[in-house]
Protein backbone atom coordinates (compact mmCIF):
# COMPACT_ATOMS: atom_id res chain seq x y z
CA UNK A 1 0.00 0.00 0.00
CA UNK A 2 2.77 2.39 0.97
CA UNK A 3 4.54 1.52 -2.27
CA UNK A 4 1.39 2.13 -4.26
CA UNK A 5 0.82 5.57 -2.76
CA UNK A 6 4.41 6.59 -3.35
CA UNK A 7 4.31 5.30 -6.89
CA UNK A 8 1.09 7.12 -7.65
CA UNK A 9 2.49 10.37 -6.24
CA UNK A 10 5.61 9.92 -8.35
CA UNK A 11 3.45 9.22 -11.38
CA UNK A 12 1.34 12.30 -10.80
CA UNK A 13 4.54 14.33 -10.51
CA UNK A 14 5.87 13.24 -13.89
CA UNK A 15 2.40 13.09 -15.40
CA UNK A 16 1.55 16.64 -14.46
CA UNK A 17 4.66 17.89 -16.27
CA UNK A 18 3.57 15.94 -19.34
CA UNK A 19 0.10 17.39 -18.92
CA UNK A 20 1.34 21.00 -19.00
CA UNK A 21 3.32 20.33 -22.17
CA UNK A 22 0.55 18.31 -23.78
CA UNK A 23 -1.94 21.07 -23.06
CA UNK A 24 0.22 23.53 -25.00
CA UNK A 25 0.50 21.12 -27.92
CA UNK A 26 -3.22 20.49 -27.94
CA UNK A 27 -3.94 24.21 -27.79
CA UNK A 28 -1.77 24.95 -30.83
CA UNK A 29 -3.26 22.00 -32.67
CA UNK A 30 -6.73 23.35 -31.91
CA UNK A 31 -6.14 26.74 -33.49
CA UNK A 32 -3.99 25.78 -36.47
CA UNK A 33 -3.88 21.99 -36.86
CA UNK A 34 -0.17 21.94 -36.21
CA UNK A 35 1.43 19.16 -34.19
CA UNK A 36 4.25 21.32 -32.90
CA UNK A 37 7.39 19.22 -32.60
CA UNK A 38 9.30 22.39 -31.73
CA UNK A 39 7.31 22.83 -28.52
CA UNK A 40 9.96 20.99 -26.49
CA UNK A 41 12.52 23.62 -27.49
CA UNK A 42 10.77 26.01 -25.11
CA UNK A 43 12.13 23.92 -22.25
CA UNK A 44 15.60 24.26 -23.74
CA UNK A 45 15.17 28.02 -24.01
CA UNK A 46 14.12 28.11 -20.37
CA UNK A 47 17.13 26.05 -19.36
CA UNK A 48 19.65 28.26 -21.13
CA UNK A 49 17.96 31.34 -19.71
CA UNK A 50 18.41 29.93 -16.22
CA UNK A 51 22.02 28.99 -16.98
CA UNK A 52 22.72 32.49 -18.26
CA UNK A 53 21.19 34.21 -15.24
CA UNK A 54 22.90 31.90 -12.77
CA UNK A 55 26.23 32.84 -14.36
CA UNK A 56 25.43 36.37 -13.32
CA UNK A 57 24.26 35.61 -9.84
CA UNK A 58 20.77 34.36 -10.28
CA UNK A 59 18.49 33.05 -7.59
CA UNK A 60 15.67 30.49 -7.66
CA UNK A 61 13.48 33.10 -5.97
CA UNK A 62 12.89 34.92 -9.21
CA UNK A 63 14.23 32.46 -11.75
CA UNK A 64 10.78 31.00 -12.62
CA UNK A 65 9.70 34.40 -13.87
CA UNK A 66 12.72 34.62 -16.17
CA UNK A 67 12.22 31.07 -17.43
CA UNK A 68 8.52 31.52 -18.11
CA UNK A 69 9.10 34.90 -19.74
CA UNK A 70 11.74 33.45 -22.04
CA UNK A 71 9.50 30.53 -23.01
CA UNK A 72 6.59 32.84 -23.84
CA UNK A 73 8.83 35.07 -25.92
CA UNK A 74 10.35 32.11 -27.76
CA UNK A 75 6.96 30.58 -28.48
CA UNK A 76 5.58 33.79 -29.96
CA UNK A 77 8.77 34.32 -31.97
CA UNK A 78 8.53 30.80 -33.37
CA UNK A 79 5.07 31.54 -34.71
CA UNK A 80 6.08 34.90 -36.10
CA UNK A 81 9.25 33.71 -37.80
CA UNK A 82 8.07 30.38 -39.19
CA UNK A 83 4.53 29.12 -38.73
CA UNK A 84 2.90 32.32 -39.92
CA UNK A 85 4.32 31.70 -43.41
CA UNK A 86 2.90 28.22 -43.74
CA UNK A 87 -0.34 28.83 -41.88
CA UNK A 88 -2.64 27.48 -44.57
CA UNK A 89 -0.38 24.62 -45.66
CA UNK A 90 -1.22 20.95 -45.16
CA UNK A 91 -0.80 19.46 -41.67
CA UNK A 92 2.10 17.43 -43.08
CA UNK A 93 3.95 20.59 -44.16
CA UNK A 94 3.21 22.26 -40.83
CA UNK A 95 4.58 19.30 -38.94
CA UNK A 96 7.77 19.19 -40.99
CA UNK A 97 8.19 22.92 -40.48
CA UNK A 98 8.15 22.35 -36.74
CA UNK A 99 10.85 19.72 -37.21
CA UNK A 100 12.95 22.26 -39.05
CA UNK A 101 12.67 24.65 -36.11
CA UNK A 102 13.59 21.92 -33.69
CA UNK A 103 16.72 21.19 -35.75
CA UNK A 104 17.62 24.86 -35.97
CA UNK A 105 17.21 25.33 -32.25
CA UNK A 106 19.57 22.44 -31.51
CA UNK A 107 22.14 23.84 -33.92
CA UNK A 108 21.97 27.36 -32.53
CA UNK A 109 22.55 26.28 -28.93
CA UNK A 110 25.43 24.11 -30.06
CA UNK A 111 27.04 26.91 -31.99
CA UNK A 112 26.46 29.80 -29.63
CA UNK A 113 26.84 28.04 -26.29
CA UNK A 114 28.20 24.51 -26.43
CA UNK A 115 27.21 20.98 -27.39
CA UNK A 116 28.10 20.00 -23.82
CA UNK A 117 25.81 20.04 -20.86
CA UNK A 118 25.86 23.22 -18.76
CA UNK A 119 24.83 22.79 -15.14
CA UNK A 120 23.59 25.34 -12.63
CA UNK A 121 22.55 25.11 -8.97
CA UNK A 122 19.32 23.53 -7.85
CA UNK A 123 17.06 24.82 -5.08
CA UNK A 124 18.27 23.47 -1.74
CA UNK A 125 15.00 21.86 -0.72
CA UNK A 126 14.35 19.85 -3.84
CA UNK A 127 15.20 16.39 -2.61
CA UNK A 128 14.00 16.88 0.96
CA UNK A 129 11.49 14.36 2.12
CA UNK A 130 8.74 14.33 4.70
CA UNK A 131 6.58 11.60 6.11
CA UNK A 132 2.87 11.31 6.63
CA UNK A 133 1.60 8.17 8.34
CA UNK A 134 4.60 6.06 7.43
CA UNK A 135 4.65 7.11 3.81
CA UNK A 136 7.51 9.37 2.78
CA UNK A 137 7.04 12.02 0.11
CA UNK A 138 9.50 14.12 -1.81
CA UNK A 139 8.91 17.82 -1.39
CA UNK A 140 9.47 18.28 -5.12
CA UNK A 141 6.70 15.87 -6.02
CA UNK A 142 4.26 17.79 -3.91
CA UNK A 143 5.45 21.12 -5.29
CA UNK A 144 5.10 19.79 -8.83
CA UNK A 145 1.58 18.57 -8.27
CA UNK A 146 0.61 21.76 -6.46
CA UNK A 147 2.04 24.08 -9.10
CA UNK A 148 0.40 22.06 -11.85
CA UNK A 149 -2.99 22.21 -10.18
CA UNK A 150 -2.60 25.96 -9.71
CA UNK A 151 -1.53 26.40 -13.33
CA UNK A 152 -4.44 24.32 -14.60
CA UNK A 153 -6.78 26.38 -12.45
CA UNK A 154 -5.39 29.56 -13.99
CA UNK A 155 -5.75 27.99 -17.43
CA UNK A 156 -9.34 27.03 -16.76
CA UNK A 157 -10.01 30.57 -15.57
CA UNK A 158 -8.48 32.11 -18.67
CA UNK A 159 -10.43 29.86 -21.01
CA UNK A 160 -13.71 30.20 -19.16
CA UNK A 161 -13.70 33.84 -18.16
CA UNK A 162 -11.59 36.01 -20.45
CA UNK A 163 -12.54 37.12 -23.93
CA UNK A 164 -9.17 35.89 -25.13
CA UNK A 165 -9.80 32.41 -23.76
CA UNK A 166 -13.28 32.19 -25.20
CA UNK A 167 -11.97 33.35 -28.58
CA UNK A 168 -9.31 30.65 -28.58
CA UNK A 169 -11.85 27.94 -27.78
CA UNK A 170 -14.15 29.30 -30.46
CA UNK A 171 -11.32 29.43 -32.99
CA UNK A 172 -10.41 25.84 -32.16
CA UNK A 173 -13.95 24.81 -33.02
CA UNK A 174 -14.57 26.96 -36.09
CA UNK A 175 -11.89 29.42 -37.07
CA UNK A 176 -13.86 31.31 -39.72
CA UNK A 177 -16.88 31.72 -37.49
CA UNK A 178 -14.60 33.18 -34.82
CA UNK A 179 -13.25 35.65 -37.35
CA UNK A 180 -16.82 36.70 -38.13
CA UNK A 181 -17.22 37.65 -34.46
CA UNK A 182 -14.43 40.19 -34.85
CA UNK A 183 -11.60 38.00 -33.58
CA UNK A 184 -8.34 38.79 -35.35
CA UNK A 185 -6.70 35.65 -36.70
CA UNK A 186 -3.16 36.88 -35.97
CA UNK A 187 -4.01 37.85 -32.46
CA UNK A 188 -5.72 34.63 -31.49
CA UNK A 189 -2.89 32.53 -32.94
CA UNK A 190 -0.13 34.63 -31.34
CA UNK A 191 -2.08 34.51 -28.12
CA UNK A 192 -2.37 30.74 -28.26
CA UNK A 193 1.38 30.47 -28.82
CA UNK A 194 2.03 32.83 -25.93
CA UNK A 195 -0.16 30.78 -23.64
CA UNK A 196 1.38 27.52 -24.79
CA UNK A 197 4.73 29.18 -24.06
CA UNK A 198 3.56 30.04 -20.55
CA UNK A 199 2.52 26.43 -19.90
CA UNK A 200 5.83 25.13 -21.28
CA UNK A 201 7.66 27.69 -19.12
CA UNK A 202 5.98 26.39 -15.97
CA UNK A 203 6.81 22.84 -17.01
CA UNK A 204 10.40 23.91 -17.66
CA UNK A 205 10.70 25.34 -14.12
CA UNK A 206 9.51 22.06 -12.64
CA UNK A 207 11.88 20.05 -14.81
CA UNK A 208 14.87 22.31 -14.16
CA UNK A 209 14.47 22.33 -10.39
CA UNK A 210 15.00 18.57 -10.46
CA UNK A 211 17.67 18.45 -13.15
CA UNK A 212 19.33 21.87 -13.22
CA UNK A 213 21.25 21.67 -16.48
CA UNK A 214 20.97 22.91 -20.03
CA UNK A 215 21.74 20.82 -23.11
CA UNK A 216 20.94 21.52 -26.77
CA UNK A 217 18.68 18.52 -27.36
CA UNK A 218 17.16 18.24 -23.88
CA UNK A 219 13.68 19.23 -25.06
CA UNK A 220 13.20 16.39 -27.49
CA UNK A 221 12.49 13.53 -25.09
CA UNK A 222 9.96 15.57 -23.14
CA UNK A 223 8.38 16.75 -26.34
CA UNK A 224 7.89 13.25 -27.75
CA UNK A 225 6.25 12.08 -24.53
CA UNK A 226 4.06 15.17 -24.46
CA UNK A 227 2.96 14.67 -28.07
CA UNK A 228 2.04 11.10 -27.25
CA UNK A 229 0.14 12.30 -24.18
CA UNK A 230 -1.73 14.88 -26.22
CA UNK A 231 -2.69 12.34 -28.85
CA UNK A 232 -3.71 9.80 -26.19
CA UNK A 233 -6.07 12.41 -24.79
CA UNK A 234 -7.35 13.36 -28.23
CA UNK A 235 -5.58 16.20 -30.04
CA UNK A 236 -7.47 19.47 -29.72
CA UNK A 237 -9.16 18.43 -26.48
CA UNK A 238 -7.84 20.40 -23.50
CA UNK A 239 -9.23 18.03 -20.91
CA UNK A 240 -7.85 15.17 -22.97
CA UNK A 241 -4.34 16.62 -22.89
CA UNK A 242 -4.34 16.76 -19.10
CA UNK A 243 -5.80 13.28 -18.76
CA UNK A 244 -3.37 11.95 -21.37
CA UNK A 245 -0.39 13.44 -19.53
CA UNK A 246 -1.42 12.02 -16.17
CA UNK A 247 -2.21 8.62 -17.68
CA UNK A 248 1.19 8.46 -19.37
CA UNK A 249 3.00 9.49 -16.16
CA UNK A 250 1.15 6.91 -14.07
CA UNK A 251 1.65 4.23 -16.71
CA UNK A 252 5.40 4.84 -16.69
CA UNK A 253 5.90 4.80 -12.93
CA UNK A 254 3.51 1.94 -12.26
CA UNK A 255 5.14 -0.23 -14.92
CA UNK A 256 8.56 0.52 -13.54
CA UNK A 257 7.47 -0.31 -10.01
CA UNK A 258 5.38 -3.38 -10.58
CA UNK A 259 6.74 -5.08 -13.69
CA UNK A 260 9.59 -6.83 -11.77
CA UNK A 261 6.96 -8.46 -9.57
CA UNK A 262 5.41 -10.03 -12.65
CA UNK A 263 8.71 -11.51 -13.77
CA UNK A 264 12.18 -10.88 -12.45
CA UNK A 265 14.54 -9.08 -14.76
CA UNK A 266 11.71 -7.31 -16.55
CA UNK A 267 12.27 -3.95 -14.92
CA UNK A 268 14.73 -2.86 -17.59
CA UNK A 269 12.03 -3.36 -20.22
CA UNK A 270 9.51 -1.13 -18.48
CA UNK A 271 9.81 1.71 -20.99
CA UNK A 272 9.49 -0.72 -23.87
CA UNK A 273 6.33 -2.14 -22.29
CA UNK A 274 4.87 1.35 -21.81
CA UNK A 275 5.32 2.22 -25.46
CA UNK A 276 4.01 -1.14 -26.57
CA UNK A 277 0.88 -0.44 -24.54
CA UNK A 278 0.65 2.97 -26.21
CA UNK A 279 1.02 1.46 -29.69
CA UNK A 280 -1.78 -0.96 -28.90
CA UNK A 281 -3.87 1.89 -27.53
CA UNK A 282 -3.62 3.76 -30.83
CA UNK A 283 -4.64 0.66 -32.72
CA UNK A 284 -7.73 0.29 -30.57
CA UNK A 285 -8.63 3.94 -30.22
CA UNK A 286 -7.00 5.97 -32.99
CA UNK A 287 -8.72 9.23 -32.04
CA UNK A 288 -7.66 9.21 -28.41
CA UNK A 289 -9.75 9.19 -25.26
CA UNK A 290 -11.63 12.38 -26.00
CA UNK A 291 -12.41 12.34 -29.69
CA UNK A 292 -12.58 15.79 -31.26
CA UNK A 293 -14.69 15.51 -34.38
CA UNK A 294 -14.07 17.65 -37.40
CA UNK A 295 -17.03 16.70 -39.54
CA UNK A 296 -16.28 16.64 -43.24
CA UNK A 297 -19.03 17.16 -45.77
CA UNK A 298 -19.08 14.64 -48.57
Amino acid at each position, binding site marked *: MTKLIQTVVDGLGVGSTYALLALGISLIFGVMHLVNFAHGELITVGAYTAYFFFLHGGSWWWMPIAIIGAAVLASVTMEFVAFRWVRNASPFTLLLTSFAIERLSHALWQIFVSPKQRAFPKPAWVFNQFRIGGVSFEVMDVVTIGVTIATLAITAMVFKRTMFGISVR*AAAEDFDAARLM*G*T*RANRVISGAFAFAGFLAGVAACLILMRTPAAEPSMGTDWLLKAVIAAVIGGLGSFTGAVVGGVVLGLLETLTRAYLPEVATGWDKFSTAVVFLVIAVFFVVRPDGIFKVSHAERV
Partner: protein
Amino acid sequence: MLEVDDITTRYGAITALHGASLEVRAGELVALVGPNGAGKTTLLNTVAGLLRPATGSVRLDGDDVTGMEPASLVRRGLALVPEHRRIFKDLTVEENLRLGGTTASKADRKARLDEAAEVFPVLRAKWSTSAGFLSGGEAQQLAVARALMSNPRLLLLDEPTMGLAPTIVDVVFDLLARLREQGRTMLVVEQNATRILQLADRGYLLRTGNIVASGTGAELAADTSLFDTFIGGETSGSTS
Protein backbone atom coordinates in the same frame (compact mmCIF):
# COMPACT_ATOMS: atom_id res chain seq x y z
CA MET B 1 -24.75 51.72 -47.46
CA LEU B 2 -23.37 48.63 -49.23
CA GLU B 3 -22.34 48.62 -52.86
CA VAL B 4 -21.11 45.43 -54.44
CA ASP B 5 -19.66 46.14 -57.83
CA ASP B 6 -18.95 43.47 -60.43
CA ILE B 7 -17.31 40.92 -58.15
CA THR B 8 -15.91 37.62 -59.34
CA THR B 9 -14.97 35.06 -56.71
CA ARG B 10 -13.17 31.78 -57.23
CA TYR B 11 -12.46 28.73 -55.12
CA GLY B 12 -9.43 27.25 -56.81
CA ALA B 13 -10.65 26.27 -60.24
CA ILE B 14 -14.29 27.02 -59.48
CA THR B 15 -15.67 30.44 -60.35
CA ALA B 16 -18.69 30.81 -58.10
CA LEU B 17 -19.52 34.43 -58.91
CA HIS B 18 -19.23 35.97 -62.36
CA GLY B 19 -19.32 39.73 -61.94
CA ALA B 20 -22.25 40.15 -59.58
CA SER B 21 -23.36 43.63 -58.47
CA LEU B 22 -25.92 44.74 -55.94
CA GLU B 23 -26.71 47.58 -53.60
CA VAL B 24 -28.27 47.86 -50.15
CA ARG B 25 -29.44 51.27 -48.94
CA ALA B 26 -29.73 52.32 -45.33
CA GLY B 27 -32.85 50.96 -43.63
CA GLU B 28 -33.67 48.49 -46.39
CA LEU B 29 -34.29 44.77 -46.17
CA VAL B 30 -32.90 43.31 -49.38
CA ALA B 31 -33.56 39.69 -50.30
CA LEU B 32 -31.13 37.63 -52.34
CA VAL B 33 -32.81 34.58 -53.80
CA GLY B 34 -31.85 31.90 -56.28
CA PRO B 35 -31.46 28.16 -56.57
CA ASN B 36 -28.81 26.27 -54.67
CA GLY B 37 -25.36 26.58 -56.13
CA ALA B 38 -26.18 30.01 -57.59
CA GLY B 39 -23.47 31.69 -55.50
CA LYS B 40 -25.56 33.37 -52.79
CA THR B 41 -23.43 32.16 -49.92
CA THR B 42 -20.28 33.01 -51.86
CA LEU B 43 -21.58 36.54 -52.30
CA LEU B 44 -22.31 37.03 -48.60
CA ASN B 45 -18.99 35.47 -47.59
CA THR B 46 -17.16 37.74 -49.99
CA VAL B 47 -18.89 40.81 -48.60
CA ALA B 48 -18.11 39.71 -45.04
CA GLY B 49 -14.42 39.27 -45.86
CA LEU B 50 -14.17 35.48 -45.53
CA LEU B 51 -13.41 35.26 -49.24
CA ARG B 52 -11.35 37.61 -51.34
CA PRO B 53 -12.85 38.50 -54.71
CA ALA B 54 -10.65 38.04 -57.79
CA THR B 55 -12.01 41.21 -59.36
CA GLY B 56 -14.55 43.90 -58.49
CA SER B 57 -15.06 45.92 -55.34
CA VAL B 58 -17.10 46.04 -52.17
CA ARG B 59 -17.87 49.45 -50.67
CA LEU B 60 -19.29 50.07 -47.24
CA ASP B 61 -20.52 53.61 -46.50
CA GLY B 62 -18.60 54.73 -49.56
CA ASP B 63 -15.26 53.29 -48.37
CA ASP B 64 -13.58 50.57 -50.36
CA VAL B 65 -13.45 47.54 -48.07
CA THR B 66 -12.59 44.90 -50.69
CA GLY B 67 -10.53 42.08 -49.22
CA MET B 68 -10.58 43.51 -45.71
CA GLU B 69 -10.39 41.09 -42.79
CA PRO B 70 -13.75 40.14 -41.22
CA ALA B 71 -12.60 41.56 -37.90
CA SER B 72 -12.17 45.02 -39.46
CA LEU B 73 -15.56 44.80 -41.12
CA VAL B 74 -17.23 43.94 -37.83
CA ARG B 75 -15.64 47.06 -36.37
CA ARG B 76 -17.14 49.02 -39.27
CA GLY B 77 -20.60 47.79 -38.37
CA LEU B 78 -21.14 44.71 -40.52
CA ALA B 79 -22.15 41.29 -39.18
CA LEU B 80 -22.90 38.01 -40.90
CA VAL B 81 -25.10 35.21 -39.59
CA PRO B 82 -23.44 32.44 -41.58
CA GLU B 83 -24.98 29.49 -43.37
CA HIS B 84 -25.60 26.50 -41.07
CA ARG B 85 -25.54 29.05 -38.20
CA ARG B 86 -22.09 27.91 -37.06
CA ILE B 87 -22.70 28.59 -33.43
CA PHE B 88 -19.90 27.35 -31.17
CA LYS B 89 -21.29 24.09 -29.86
CA ASP B 90 -18.60 23.59 -27.21
CA LEU B 91 -19.30 27.02 -25.74
CA THR B 92 -22.23 28.00 -23.56
CA VAL B 93 -24.99 30.24 -24.84
CA GLU B 94 -23.60 33.11 -22.80
CA GLU B 95 -20.09 32.58 -24.14
CA ASN B 96 -21.39 32.53 -27.70
CA LEU B 97 -23.11 35.85 -27.09
CA ARG B 98 -20.08 37.39 -25.40
CA LEU B 99 -17.98 36.44 -28.42
CA GLY B 100 -20.46 38.21 -30.65
CA GLY B 101 -19.57 41.33 -28.68
CA THR B 102 -15.83 40.91 -29.17
CA THR B 103 -15.49 44.36 -30.66
CA ALA B 104 -17.71 46.13 -28.13
CA SER B 105 -16.51 47.83 -24.97
CA LYS B 106 -16.95 45.94 -21.72
CA ALA B 107 -19.87 48.09 -20.63
CA ASP B 108 -21.63 47.82 -23.99
CA ARG B 109 -21.13 44.09 -24.02
CA LYS B 110 -22.72 43.80 -20.59
CA ALA B 111 -25.66 45.99 -21.58
CA ARG B 112 -26.28 44.04 -24.78
CA LEU B 113 -26.05 40.72 -22.98
CA ASP B 114 -28.86 41.87 -20.70
CA GLU B 115 -30.80 43.06 -23.69
CA ALA B 116 -30.35 39.73 -25.49
CA ALA B 117 -31.58 37.89 -22.42
CA GLU B 118 -34.68 40.02 -22.52
CA VAL B 119 -35.35 39.84 -26.26
CA PHE B 120 -34.67 36.10 -26.52
CA PRO B 121 -36.32 34.40 -23.56
CA VAL B 122 -35.56 30.94 -24.99
CA LEU B 123 -31.88 31.73 -24.72
CA ARG B 124 -32.14 33.09 -21.21
CA ALA B 125 -33.60 29.76 -20.14
CA LYS B 126 -30.47 27.98 -21.44
CA TRP B 127 -27.92 30.66 -20.55
CA SER B 128 -25.24 28.31 -19.18
CA THR B 129 -25.95 25.29 -21.38
CA SER B 130 -23.55 24.22 -24.10
CA ALA B 131 -24.89 25.55 -27.37
CA GLY B 132 -24.55 22.04 -28.81
CA PHE B 133 -27.65 21.08 -26.85
CA LEU B 134 -29.90 23.71 -28.40
CA SER B 135 -32.66 22.79 -30.82
CA GLY B 136 -32.50 24.09 -34.38
CA GLY B 137 -34.76 27.05 -33.67
CA GLU B 138 -32.92 28.00 -30.51
CA ALA B 139 -29.60 27.71 -32.31
CA GLN B 140 -30.81 30.02 -35.07
CA GLN B 141 -31.97 32.60 -32.57
CA LEU B 142 -28.63 32.34 -30.84
CA ALA B 143 -26.86 32.90 -34.17
CA VAL B 144 -28.87 36.06 -34.80
CA ALA B 145 -28.57 37.28 -31.22
CA ARG B 146 -24.81 36.67 -31.38
CA ALA B 147 -24.49 38.78 -34.52
CA LEU B 148 -26.54 41.55 -32.93
CA MET B 149 -24.09 41.73 -30.03
CA SER B 150 -21.79 43.86 -32.19
CA ASN B 151 -24.75 46.20 -32.81
CA PRO B 152 -24.23 46.04 -36.59
CA ARG B 153 -25.65 48.67 -38.88
CA LEU B 154 -25.72 46.12 -41.70
CA LEU B 155 -26.74 42.57 -40.90
CA LEU B 156 -26.22 39.79 -43.43
CA LEU B 157 -28.21 36.60 -42.92
CA ASP B 158 -27.51 33.38 -44.81
CA GLU B 159 -30.42 30.92 -44.95
CA PRO B 160 -31.79 31.73 -41.50
CA THR B 161 -34.64 29.20 -41.79
CA MET B 162 -32.74 26.25 -43.21
CA GLY B 163 -33.64 22.97 -41.58
CA LEU B 164 -36.20 24.48 -39.22
CA ALA B 165 -39.69 23.16 -38.49
CA PRO B 166 -42.50 25.29 -40.01
CA THR B 167 -43.59 26.83 -36.70
CA ILE B 168 -39.99 27.84 -35.98
CA VAL B 169 -39.72 29.30 -39.49
CA ASP B 170 -42.55 31.63 -38.46
CA VAL B 171 -40.60 32.65 -35.36
CA VAL B 172 -37.56 33.54 -37.48
CA PHE B 173 -39.64 35.53 -39.97
CA ASP B 174 -41.24 37.42 -37.09
CA LEU B 175 -37.77 38.18 -35.82
CA LEU B 176 -36.74 39.51 -39.23
CA ALA B 177 -39.85 41.66 -39.37
CA ARG B 178 -39.09 43.04 -35.92
CA LEU B 179 -35.50 43.85 -36.80
CA ARG B 180 -36.73 45.62 -39.90
CA GLU B 181 -39.14 47.74 -37.89
CA GLN B 182 -36.23 48.73 -35.67
CA GLY B 183 -34.62 50.12 -38.80
CA ARG B 184 -31.84 47.53 -39.00
CA THR B 185 -30.42 47.32 -42.56
CA MET B 186 -30.38 43.72 -43.76
CA LEU B 187 -29.30 41.60 -46.71
CA VAL B 188 -30.96 38.20 -46.47
CA VAL B 189 -30.35 35.00 -48.42
CA GLU B 190 -33.38 32.78 -48.02
CA GLN B 191 -34.64 29.63 -49.70
CA ASN B 192 -38.26 30.44 -48.95
CA ALA B 193 -38.29 32.97 -51.80
CA THR B 194 -42.00 33.69 -51.75
CA ARG B 195 -42.04 34.64 -48.15
CA ILE B 196 -38.87 36.67 -47.97
CA LEU B 197 -39.94 38.68 -51.04
CA GLN B 198 -43.19 39.58 -49.28
CA LEU B 199 -41.15 41.04 -46.46
CA ALA B 200 -38.32 42.61 -48.46
CA ASP B 201 -38.13 46.14 -49.83
CA ARG B 202 -36.19 44.91 -52.81
CA GLY B 203 -34.81 41.65 -54.10
CA TYR B 204 -32.17 40.20 -56.40
CA LEU B 205 -32.36 36.89 -58.24
CA LEU B 206 -29.03 35.13 -58.56
CA ARG B 207 -28.41 32.27 -60.98
CA THR B 208 -25.12 30.48 -61.73
CA GLY B 209 -23.08 33.35 -60.39
CA ASN B 210 -24.94 36.17 -62.12
CA ILE B 211 -27.68 38.55 -61.02
CA VAL B 212 -30.44 37.76 -63.54
CA ALA B 213 -33.27 39.89 -62.18
CA SER B 214 -33.93 42.54 -59.58
CA GLY B 215 -36.77 44.74 -58.44
CA THR B 216 -39.06 45.40 -55.51
CA GLY B 217 -40.14 42.35 -53.58
CA ALA B 218 -43.55 42.33 -55.18
CA GLU B 219 -42.23 42.77 -58.71
CA LEU B 220 -39.76 39.96 -58.32
CA ALA B 221 -42.31 37.66 -56.73
CA ALA B 222 -44.59 38.21 -59.72
CA ASP B 223 -41.81 37.74 -62.26
CA THR B 224 -42.09 34.47 -64.18
CA SER B 225 -38.32 34.17 -64.33
CA LEU B 226 -38.36 33.42 -60.62
CA PHE B 227 -40.48 30.33 -61.09
CA ASP B 228 -38.50 29.29 -64.13
CA THR B 229 -35.17 29.68 -62.41
CA PHE B 230 -36.19 27.46 -59.57
CA ILE B 231 -38.32 24.91 -61.35
CA GLY B 232 -36.21 24.73 -64.44
CA GLY B 233 -37.75 26.57 -67.35
CA GLU B 234 -35.97 28.21 -70.26
CA THR B 235 -33.33 30.86 -69.78
CA SER B 236 -34.60 33.62 -67.55
CA GLY B 237 -35.52 37.14 -68.56
CA SER B 238 -35.00 40.12 -66.34
CA THR B 239 -36.97 42.85 -64.69
CA SER B 240 -35.54 46.02 -63.32
